[in-house]
């Protein structure tokens, strides 16, 4: 095992995703403390310019037509070969739609430990201390992974992106393994249709979560939003249930918003939701559970029934 830290970067639409820079920045610090190198890895096709944007000690850019679009099988094969070759102490991958297909798979294939939901990694006296956010952010666990190397799935926003941005020249290579006979084929991308309000461009959002209880109650939120000149947004369970269109979803698999006001009714504050709204200027959360993680992020909070408060607000506004 080497003392290197491998960072699996990712990109979309020809641009490196912020999470990659966030991880590279932290990897540099950790590799320094461990006495190894921070190695950024990028897989793609025709992406050489983007591969040169990391502040890593070294960057490996694997270029192949089969890697142009994310393909979990093709990417997995290449990464398993690279991890076997480099035998890094730590491999960092994003807790993203890409990383969630690869991290646990890679760890199992290469016989390494795996830690998901990672919010922090520190090097203390040569040991790695990894913090994982369990139970939808309700618990935080600190571990020192055992064995030969660990793969960690890092939450977006865990580290600042600036420290990972740089201009290290990438070494371009061809895939170290054959990419023939893939059972998984990328077909096409679908982009969302426009037409609905753009919640990323709105100043005031009233966001509802599972606490709203039923589809009928969405109307109350609509009324309150209207009275405030705001627009209704939602957590994932609401759009999954079809109570609001997908265009209103805030979070990891939804949209990232930075409104002047984000009023939250019955949203617990799972990490996937926080990812999309934690930079809101004024966040006010109403939730009956005093331990709801959202209260660690909101500026103001009330442990009240959302229906009582929403109705009282409506009354005052009218």
């Amino acid at each position, binding site marked *: 095992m080497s003392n290197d830290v491998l960072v699996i970067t990712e990109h979309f639409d020809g641009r490196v995703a912020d999470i990659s820079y966030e991880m590279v920045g932290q990897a540099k610090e950790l590799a320094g403390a461990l006495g190894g190198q921070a190695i950024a890895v990028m897989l793609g096709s025709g992406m050489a310019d983007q591969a040169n944007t990391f502040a890593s000690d070294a960057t490996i850019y694997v270029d192949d037509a089969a890697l142009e679009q994310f393909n979990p099988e093709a990417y997995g094969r290449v990464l398993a070969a690279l991890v076997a070759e480099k035998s890094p102490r730590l491999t960092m991958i994003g807790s993203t739609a890409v990383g*969630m297909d690869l991290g646990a798979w890679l760890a*199992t294939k290469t016989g390494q430990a795996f830690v998901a939901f990672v919010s922090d990694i520190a090097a203390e006296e040569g040991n790695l201390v990894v913090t994982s956010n369990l139970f939808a952010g309700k618990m935080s666990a600190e571990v020192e992974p055992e064995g030969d190397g660990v793969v960690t799935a890092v939450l977006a926003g865990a580290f600042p992106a600036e420290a990972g941005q740089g201009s290290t020249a990438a070494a371009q290579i061809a895939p170290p393994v054959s990419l023939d006979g893939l059972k998984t084929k990328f*077909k096409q991308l679908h982009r969302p249709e426009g037409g609905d309000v753009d919640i990323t461009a709105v100043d005031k959002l009233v966001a509802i979560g599972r606490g709203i209880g039923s589809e009928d109650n969405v109307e109350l939120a609509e009324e309150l939003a209207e009275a405030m000149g705001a627009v209704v947004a939602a957590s994932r369970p609401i759009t999954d249930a079809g109570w609001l269109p997908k265009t209103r979803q805030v979070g990891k698999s*939804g949209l990232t918003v930075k409104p002047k006001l984000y009023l939250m009714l019955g949203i617990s504050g799972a990490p996937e939701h926080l990812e999309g709204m934690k930079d809101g200027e004024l966040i006010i959360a109403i939730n009956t559970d005093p331990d709801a993680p959202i209260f660690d992020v909101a500026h103001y909070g009330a442990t009240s029934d959302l229906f009582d408060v929403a109705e009282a607000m409506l009354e005052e506004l009218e």
Partner: protein
Amino acid sequence: MNIVVAIKHVPSLADELEVNDEGTNLDYDMVDFVLSEWDEQAIEQAALIKEASGGTVTVVGVDVIEELDNVLHTALAKGADKAAKIVGDFEPPVESRDQAQLLAEAIKEMSPDLVLTGVQAIDDLNGQIGPMLAALLDMPYVGVVVNVAVSGDTAVVTKEYAGGVTAEYEVALPAVIGIQAASQPPRYAPVSKIRQMAKTAEIEEIEAEEEEFEPAPINKMAKPVAAGHAEMIEGEPEEVAAKILGIIREKGLL
């Protein structure tokens, strides 16, 4: 089409979570278990595939606390054809990687065409059984999936990215798919039907080849220490409402 759904029982978040005396994990004596929410989506997606293209659906899970029957009966009431539980003298928690090992052994025997599982489970460091199963079964894996359509020996799956963008993949079967959300919200199973299943349905018992697992040692588990905490607004709903509106007005937002 032989569809297997791998499921996991996880601590319920509806109750307050308590840490054990050593501060190294939950106090599992104080925990109620529920089906992991993404596994419920996987069961629904399996039922939808069966309705669209035929086949049988088998739901299987590790019965860590010997209370999995109700979850399995519910799955049967929602359209699964068979249910199986992996039994042994387990002590919770049995981590995802160990459950994946047990599930892989059981699933191999079932010779599935398609294995569905929830995209994640939030109750341990491993977080995801699906990719581990795929690695152990040597099958391709696609996760964060919101639709699966099967035709012949391929599945067309829709994987979700941020901002409403999705990607379509064609996967040669057998494969493991990690379900984020079924293409329709999970159906409701009437209590009467679940009761009927409890009376009539047979749950296959699969003896675990290994029963003792050592969870990865955790130095410390605690409620997260946040950098900040919301300033809490106290009072009756009317007072809370007035104070909230006051804060919003103060910022010139009303």
